[in-house]
């Protein structure tokens, strides 16, 4: 008779659990069935995902304002300085780029006329 007594005890406990769930507004799910409630609990994160890539304005806002930039001074650019040096050297040797209207194409066009 001890077996049936144990079953009765479990049934009583279940009933108590069901009632307490009803009173306190909890979910009574003794079998642990999957209800998919975890999906409803998740936050919507699409709006956050859309804002990943910033607009041009936002990129400019993140840049650090510098005194030299605000005053309109030219920034130190080693590559540009190197390029200008090379151009000066070429020009000194007479190998620089021709002026406007003195290039190969421009002279050909003049001959045609």
């Amino acid at each position, binding site marked *: 008779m001890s077996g049936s007594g144990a079953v009765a005890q479990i049934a009583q406990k279940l009933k108590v659990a069901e009632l307490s769930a009803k009173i306190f507004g909890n979910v009574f799910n003794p079998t642990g*069935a*999957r*209800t*998919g409630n975890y*999906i*409803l609990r*998740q936050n*919507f*994160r*699409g*709006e956050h*995902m*859309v804002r*990943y*890539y*910033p607009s041009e304005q936002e*990129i400019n806002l*993140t*840049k*650090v304002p510098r005194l030299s930039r605000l005053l309109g001074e030219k920034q130190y650019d080693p590559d540009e300085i190197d390029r200008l040096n090379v151009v000066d050297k070429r020009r000194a040797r007479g190998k620089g780029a021709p002026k406007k209207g003195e290039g190969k194409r421009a002279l050909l066009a003049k001959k045609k006329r």
Partner: protein
Amino acid sequence: MRSRVLRDIKARRAVVGKELERTIWRFLSRNTTIEPQIRMQAQLALNRTPREACPTAIKNRCILTGRGRGVFNQWRMCRFQFRMQALNGDLPGVDKASW
């Protein structure tokens, strides 16, 4: 690499548009207490939604170059751009380690 970024932006917009719908289908398909037929239909509907509307199809890319690998999530840029910007002093609070 710009086209990849545009594709990613498109996918992000698709995610926002389909988010509610996908949540409903997911809830219905994962809920074992409702009828199997409804669950099956929900699963099929979930399969029918475009792949790009799935949040896992989204890739965080470098906002400056569009590189897909080696991207710091906190700075949203790839490791090269991060290094260059940090050395240039454009990232507030970032300093080269020295001890």
